[in-house]
């Protein structure tokens, strides 16, 4: 066993970090504030194969794992460019299609996930279901040799820039506990509308309410079995958690790096403020939390890439929880270290608060992870 990443993984991190540095925080923030997308970075990362590292080689991808994709996501975030859609498009959607799609679906989508030329959003959250996915009501009816999809989703990221959305629905004769069926719906499909939600997060990616009003789909819009059970969905959700954890780790590193630079430089009494233990110790503590959380993220990716979905589930949840908490502490302490500058636009620290705070809520909330660990890891009774 080794806790040190392979030479290739480290070379990948170095290469991505260099690309990220070329764009950096200023690029990302400028795009976010002017309502634009990080298209140039996405396209360049795609051409270099960084967004498709996990896509199988026979479809033009890198043939690596989710651990490689997480490394890409973390390094870009650490360089100031957290690409939210990486969590969704290559991690959830490409994984589900690679694992459960038909040969036709794979040939159609995977080569474009491999070079980033396609983006697919992912929609599970509903206004009345939220954390309880078993209550979703988006329904697929059979119609001749196709499907008709109706329902509503909320908080769906990136619909405006996606080519298609992967919807989690249930088939009409299904009641009770969810046996999800997954449908690819092109964003231009008739009857599919999306409305932006105003959010207090500085990010080029936007969230949307999606309405599906009797959207007709061909039979092969369905990915996997029509009531394939939770397993085919979880094949995509473990990567989602691992990626969310990687993104949090990257933002935590970014904030901590800014705080350390500032603490070495800023002097108001005899020594730079970083010499005061009241400033140094909380930064050191945040660093410890962050490294522990990163390690759990790497373990989760390692288990997942090794084919242990069940083992990966627990580790991925723990990593997601721990990285969100660590990233929040890193950003909070970075703001504190910067004093008033922590909340200026110029220093780019205050604006990270919204993004890391989000990580305690999405893609799965802190409480739902604690529920999972209480029930599955500790064997405590379930309250809900």
């Amino acid at each position: 066993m080794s806790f040190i990443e392979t030479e290739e993984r480290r070379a990948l991190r170095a290469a991505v970090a260099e690309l990220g540095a070329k764009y950096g925080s200023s690029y990302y923030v400028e795009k976010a504030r002017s309502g634009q997308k990080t298209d140039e970075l996405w396209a360049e990362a795609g051409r270099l194969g960084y967004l498709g590292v996990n896509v199988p080689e026979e479809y033009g991808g890198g043939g690596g794992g989710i651990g490689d994709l997480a490394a890409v996501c973390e390094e870009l975030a650490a360089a100031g460019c957290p690409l939210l859609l990486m969590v969704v498009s290559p991690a959830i959607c490409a994984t589900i299609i690679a694992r459960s799609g038909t040969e036709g679906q794979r040939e159609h989508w995977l080569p474009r996930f491999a070079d980033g030329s396609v983006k697919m959003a992912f929609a599970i959250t509903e206004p009345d279901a939220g954390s309880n996915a078993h209550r979703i009501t988006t329904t697929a009816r059979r119609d001749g040799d196709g499907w008709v999809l109706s329902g509503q989703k909320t908080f769906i990221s990136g619909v405006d820039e996606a080519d298609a959305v992967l919807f989690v629905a249930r088939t009409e004769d299904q009641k009770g506990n969810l046996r999800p069926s997954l449908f690819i719906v092109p964003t231009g499909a008739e009857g599919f509308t999306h409305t932006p939600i105003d959010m207090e997060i500085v990010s080029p990616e936007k969230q949307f309410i999606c309405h599906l009003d009797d959207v007709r789909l061909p039979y092969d819009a369905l990915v996997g079995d029509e009531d394939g059970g939770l397993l085919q969905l979880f094949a995509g959700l473990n990567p989602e958690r691992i990626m969310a954890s990687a993104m949090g780790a990257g933002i935590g590193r970014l904030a901590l790096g800014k705080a350390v630079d500032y603490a070495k430089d800023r002097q108001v009494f005899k020594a730079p403020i970083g010499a005061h233990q009241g400033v140094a110790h909380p930064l050191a503590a945040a660093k410890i939390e962050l490294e522990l959380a990163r390690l759990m993220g790497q373990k989760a990716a390692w288990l997942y890439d090794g084919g242990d979905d069940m083992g990966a589930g627990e580790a991925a949840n723990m990593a997601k929880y721990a990285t969100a908490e660590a990233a929040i502490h890193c950003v909070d302490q970075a703001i504190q270290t910067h004093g008033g500058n922590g909340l200026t636009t110029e220093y780019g620290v205050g604006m990270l608060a919204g993004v890391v705070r989000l990580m305690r809520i999405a893609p799965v909330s802190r409480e739902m992870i604690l529920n999972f660990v209480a029930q599955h890891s500790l064997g405590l009774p379930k309250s809900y």
Partner: protein
Amino acid sequence: MNIVVLVKQVPDTESPRKLKSDDSTLDRAAADGVINELDEYAIEEALKIKEAHGGEVTVLTMGPAKATDSIRKALAMGADKAVHLVDDGLAGSDALQTSYAIQQALGRTGFDIVILGSESTDARTGVLAAMLSERLGVPQITLANKVEIDGSAIKAQRVTDYGYDRVEATLPAVVSVVEKINEPRYPSFKGIMAAKKKPVETLGLGDAGIDAAQVGLANAATEVVDFADAPARAQGQIVTDEGDGGAKIAEFLASKKFV
């Protein structure tokens, strides 16, 4: 076309660089090693020439064992193979000796064109291209910002204080490049994965036919007698605009050869 690109590993310019107090050589262990920045442009140019004219790109590095990281990166960018000249006997070599050692290694690889950076960021002597071409008896084209190959002719633009010169030579030749020549590529994921499988030949003094008495600190023609830390950055100069601010700034930039 047999293209050899010289790649030097240097301490990251982002990290503090130090000379060792005992032998006045660079403390290479103290800082992260990276590819000398201009050498990335040399690699890119080598790859472009290969893409246009076919052939093979060989990376040639003289440096300690940890220089393999830089070799891997050059291979990940797309070079085909590498030769790593590594031997304790080479430590502390000066420019004259380095050019000799590299000449010997080039005797093993052969070459139609040798491409290198015009200057390293650590020693910055900027003399290697000239010394090599003299030793090899081939033309040198230095400070190139544009290179074109046409059969056995090589045409280049070289940067000068007043603009550029157009020069032409016959291959084989030595070409040193400046950063205006291209934009180095990032290694792709496939490039990174492929790099590990590419051949890296390690040469010691004997393998390369290098005479041990002609290399290394003890035999160097030059000696570092003394050194001091760089002075702290001085306060910038403030130009007060009295109607001629623009002209004064332009004058300053011109005096530093920025414009």
